[in-house]
């Protein structure tokens, strides 16, 4: 896990925000008269890499637009790097790099031309814009390809260009909206590594919006979950993941005997699909399962770490959430959905 220590809101932007890069209080955004995108959202984003988790439509993009000063809130306040979003949008947009969710690149220019131009649009003089565009594109791993027209790029390369244009103005904060959208598994891993590196080595704070918890928890220090515009939970990654992980154990035969043995050893196994699910308290849980299986001489076919649905994971009281989800699991087919259950198998660990 990245431990991000470098001081953030320092330097030219005047008053450093004490311990927070983003702060909102009672932030509410109502579109028209009926659609509530954000509802009394009060969050504090610490320096480092922070994940903004929520399903599609939870209000992530609306929050980012308000933070950039592009959208006025209906009520409440928001501040980025100590600057008020409602009145100091220009300063904030000088200090912030934004990577939109959707495709936003012209196909008929080269990456160098585009990023240089956008560097100028960030306020860099032309020589500095050229130099920083070349640097940014190298940082994201585009070398001689950057002299090619963007229309010829793969999805992964386009995402890299989008990240490079957010970096070119030397921001203090990056707002990344679904940076792994449309990437294959290898591309996702590469993009996540890149974001982690920017957070740790470049000393830039990052707010990553995503609906895939399992993906961005690997690179985040802090997680903020929102749903229907409301805060579900805001906590450090370690406390979130420890309390919520479960272990799925499958044996080819003797499931009932294993359940009895695990219960005897102090765990509370719950039947799930063809196996058993036990709450993962730490490494000792693995030991208990291993010993139980070995003592009974059962053929172990599968053992993997799993995660509950995002909403359950972010209930205020994680123990209640786990009990509730454990009960709900056999009846709820949604648990098997791609966004709701994250697997952290032995091979896919970072």
């Amino acid at each position: 896990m990245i431990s991000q220590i470098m001081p953030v809101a320092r330097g030219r932007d005047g008053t450093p925000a004490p311990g927070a890069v983003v702060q909102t209080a009672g932030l509410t955004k109502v579109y028209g008269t009926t659609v509530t995108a954000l509802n009394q959202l009060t969050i504090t984003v610490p320096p480092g890499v922070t994940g903004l988790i929520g399903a599609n439509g939870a209000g992530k993009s609306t929050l980012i637009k308000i933070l950039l000063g592009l959208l006025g809130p209906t009520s409440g306040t928001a501040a980025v790097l100590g600057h008020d979003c409602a009145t100091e949008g220009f300063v904030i947009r000088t200090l912030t790099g934004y990577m939109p969710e959707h495709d936003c690149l012209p196909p008929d220019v080269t990456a160098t031309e585009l990023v240089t131009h956008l560097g100028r649009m960030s306020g860099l003089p032309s020589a500095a814009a050229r130099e920083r565009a070349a640097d940014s594109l190298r940082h994201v791993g585009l070398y001689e390809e950057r002299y090619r027209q963007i229309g010829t790029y793969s999805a992964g390369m386009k995402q890299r260009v989008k990240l490079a244009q957010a970096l070119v103005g030397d921001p203090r904060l990056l707002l990344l909206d679904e940076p792994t959208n449309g990437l294959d598994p290898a591309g996702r891993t590469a993009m996540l590594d890149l974001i982690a590196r920017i957070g740790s080595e470049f000393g830039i704070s990052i707010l990553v919006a995503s609906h895939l918890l399992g993906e961005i928890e690997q690179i985040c220090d802090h997680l903020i979950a929102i749903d229907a515009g409301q805060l579900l939970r805001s906590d450090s990654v370690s406390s979130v993941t420890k309390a919520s992980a479960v272990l799925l154990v499958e044996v080819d035969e003797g499931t009932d005997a294993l359940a009895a043995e695990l219960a005897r050893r102090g765990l509370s196994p719950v039947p799930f699909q063809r196996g058993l699910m036990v709450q993962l308290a730490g490494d000792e849980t693995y030991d208990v399962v291993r010993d139980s299986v070995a003592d009974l001489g059962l053929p172990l076919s599968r053992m993997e770490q799993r995660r509950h649905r995002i909403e359950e994971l972010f209930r205020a009281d994680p123990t209640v959430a786990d009990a509730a989800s454990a009960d709900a699991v056999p009846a709820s087919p949604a648990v098997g959905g791609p966004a709701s259950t994250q697997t952290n198998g032995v091979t896919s660990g970072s």
Partner: protein
Amino acid sequence: MAAKTEPAPAGQVAPAGSDGGVIHNIGYRRYEGARLGRGSIFLALTWHSLRAAFGLGRGAKAKIFPALMFVIMCLPAVVNAVSLATNPSGGAIITYDDYVPSIRTVAMLIFVAVEAPNLVSADLRNHTLPLYFARPIGRIDYPLAKLVAFVIACLLMIEVPLVILYVGNVTQVHGAHAVWEQTLQFGPGLLYGAAWAVLLASIGLLLASVSGKRVFAICAVAIPLFFTYIVAHVLEQVGRQAFRPVPGCVGGVVRHAGQVVCLHPGFHPPALASLAGLISPFTLLGGLLRWLGAPNPSPAGNLQATIIGQYGDIYGLVFVLLTLAAIGGLILRYRKVGVA
């Protein structure tokens, strides 16, 4: 690659001898230099857009149309200069105010229809606007920078031929007085050309910004401009049929498009013919010229001169209102446009 010359990073040596695939940890360098303010960013966007209007910074294909239209616009001035040089006694055949209205109309129509979409439509099509508005660029800065750039582009198209015309004329006249005479006509010609540039650029950008699809945007500009021009002309011709000389009129008679036209102060052409010119921006500009009092309409210009009758003030008013409406519409368009 490194050998292909990055601007060498200050105080750091770029990794040399790299052979693809190797990732160099060049480290992250903060930018400590000066940052440009909103005004300078506005100018940078204007310059970028002005280049785009002539296809600079894009492929060779993008340069064909603007170059062709520019050559066509300059042709009359060059012909004028050559004709004066070979036959100095013949006199200038083109005036500064009208230039050659037919050529100016056709060339500018094509230029505006093809190039206005390049400035505004491409950013809409590629959803590039969020990248702009997430930077220190105001909602009003973007359309205004595009407008300033396109007005300048149209000015270059219109005024450079006038400069060639002026140079061609001045080199063939003798004496300070004659040069001064030319200059007196040249000045208003430039101003009138500016009226063309402002009106066509604002209308062109507004129409082009309705669609992100290039073909639709070109049609959105070309079709209204072309058809209003046709309609205005047809109505004007219909009106002209009734525009007969009045026997025994006083106040002077001129030859006009092969007909004898009475300029009696009490006689006015029919309202239909006089107001038809308001329909199209091109005939509106022609009427504006008549209203401002074209010092000496050229024979070529007279053939297509807009009839304004006693409605000259209306032409002036409509010109101002139409320009303001187009600019206002463009600004509103970008206030509404979605980001992200």
